[in-house]
């Protein structure tokens, strides 16, 4: 009997069980169908949510001159690709997108991996001070990033790392949020009997992680990956201190645009649009999973 055979079937009823109760105890509102007024109010919320993004694309397709006139444009013009080209070349959005993919990709892979390991340890393994260490982990989320940036900046300057991507990757290789998120998931989704069964078979911890923990954690790992990617792509404070327009991430390039690097509002809007596009695509493809992940993290948080 190999451990891999043991792992998966157990995860199935468990996952089902986890979802079951929440469906049964839905609040009373859920039982009532929404009336026209509800749809109307929701439509207003939806309009407010989406209009600024649509208008970004409209503004990006116009000229700087036109954007200073009243009334503001309400439909697309013909300059979208020209403005995006300018933003891509002159504002460094091309380099920035590539850098952001590298940075956010590296942070995502490492955060998901290390958070799963730590979350598994907190959820299922017994060790001294585990309760205290978990509390400490949660407590670290309260510390503002501002508390670290001055020394980090001085060290990176000492190392000659100014303006290099590892300066913004290293501090975020694993997060307290990710650790807690995976812990909360694995407490329920990973039956302790499975781990014990694998232990009885003499499986080492690495084998347990590989054959038992990772398969059970996979759905949550995917969701954490999405949430981490969004967070890393949009991270602002430390990147704008550590990097400059010579080697920017998307947010650094947008910051340069905002401070007059290319003083053309239509190009600035094209940059904002381009910089948001990858995440918008991710939301269209995986919106359901991202929504589920935020709601899942919330119940337990």
């Amino acid at each position: 009997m190999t451990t891999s055979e043991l792992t998966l079937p157990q995860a199935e009823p468990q996952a089902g069980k986890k979802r079951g109760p929440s469906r049964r105890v839905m609040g009373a509102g859920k039982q009532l169908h929404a009336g026209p007024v509800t749809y109307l109010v929701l439509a207003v919320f939806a309009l407010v949510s989406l209009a600024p993004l649509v208008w970004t694309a409209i503004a990006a397709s116009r000229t700087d001159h036109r954007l200073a006139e009243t009334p503001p444009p309400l439909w697309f013009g013909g300059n979208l690709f020209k403005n995006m080209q300018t933003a891509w070349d002159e504002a460094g959005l091309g380099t920035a997108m590539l850098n952001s993919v590298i940075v956010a990709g590296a942070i995502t892979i490492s955060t998901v991996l290390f958070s799963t390991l730590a979350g598994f340890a907190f959820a299922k393994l017994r060790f001294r001070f585990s309760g205290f260490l978990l509390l400490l982990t949660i407590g670290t989320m309260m510390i503002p990033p501002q508390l670290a940036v001055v020394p980090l900046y001085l060290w990176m300057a000492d190392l000659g790392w100014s303006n290099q991507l590892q300066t913004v990757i290293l501090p975020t290789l694993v997060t307290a949020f990710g650790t807690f998120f995976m812990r909360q998931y694995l407490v329920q989704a990973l039956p302790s009997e499975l781990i014990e069964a694998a232990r009885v078979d003499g499986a080492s911890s690495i084998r347990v992680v590989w054959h038992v923990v990772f398969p059970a954690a996979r759905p949550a790992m995917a969701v954490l990956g999405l949430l981490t990617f969004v967070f890393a792509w949009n991270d602002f404070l430390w990147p704008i201190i550590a990097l400059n327009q010579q080697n920017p991430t998307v947010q650094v390039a947008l910051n340069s645009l905002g401070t007059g690097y290319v003083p053309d509002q239509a190009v600035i809007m094209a940059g904002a649009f381009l910089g948001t596009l990858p995440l918008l695509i991710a939301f269209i493809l995986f919106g359901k999973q991202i929504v589920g992940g935020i709601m899942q993290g919330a119940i337990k948080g």
Partner: protein
Amino acid sequence: MTSPKQALAHPASSAEAAPGSQPGAARGAHGRGTPPPEDKSPWRSRLYRWDMKASPYVFIAPFFVIFGAFSLIPLLYTAWYSLHDVQLSSLDTQTWAGLDNYQNLLSSDFFWNALKNTFTIGVISTVPQLMAAIGLAHLLNYRLRGSTVWRVVMLTPYATSVAAATLVFTLLYSWDGGMVNWLLDFVGIDPINWRESDWGSQFAVSSIVIWRWTGYNALIYLAAMQAIPADLYESAAIDGANRWQQFIHVTVPQLRPTILFTVVVSTIGATQLFGEPLLFGGVSGSKGGSEHQYQTLGLYMYDQGWIIGNLGKASAIAWSMFLILLIVAAINLLVTRRLRKSQ
């Protein structure tokens, strides 16, 4: 592209491929706590025991190493630097300054101004945001056609970065040709100078925060609403409570822990507010407007540290922010205790 999606949609799909392993699980259950098979050599069983003991610490080590190296040690160094004179122009010479940086702060009008702005903007961005989020969550909790689509739509502002959102809103609020003033003109309101006026600029900055986070908080409330037992509503309905009364007397009290959680998270976020006012200010963004009317503590720290070049003072500002957060957290804890006792 499709494989992660499938994995998400059917979390247990691969499980079905390996049926019939129940015996193994049963064996695991009755074999609880037994050591590994005896035919292993003592060396191997010692290795096994060591593995059992050490592995939890190995698994949590990356988090604590990263936290130590990039948060805890820097946090302590920030305290150290806040007691020194550290200039961006001469990083190698750091001279002891005692509490000079802090005294300097306490006697600086800009510091108090930034503190006041952080508080004001924090309140006018958090309170309406959370109230709108509860209302929105209530609506999303109805049985809706295309409920997932509605939820994703409400969350799209969250996909927009602080930088992108602020660039767009700055243009929407602009004096010449701005969308907001044009719309206000329709309802007969004179154009407002969103950049220069005190409350106008603070409202504009707050609106960016509200726009980005309302949907996110609504989803958190929605998750909590769905966990409220239905019989609470049933008994309220039997007692003759209408839907509004049910919302006030059942939903809101049941959401209390979640509301406290979002208040704490939003407070932490509001204390650090930085990107929105920075980019809203355009070219001289770190000043927070011509009269510093929307310069927050986060922005003041960046301005002192990297624009003016006084990293020692910036460190002192960072620690002041932290102390303020700790005080707020302590107050929050007290209020929570009081609320629990009164229940």
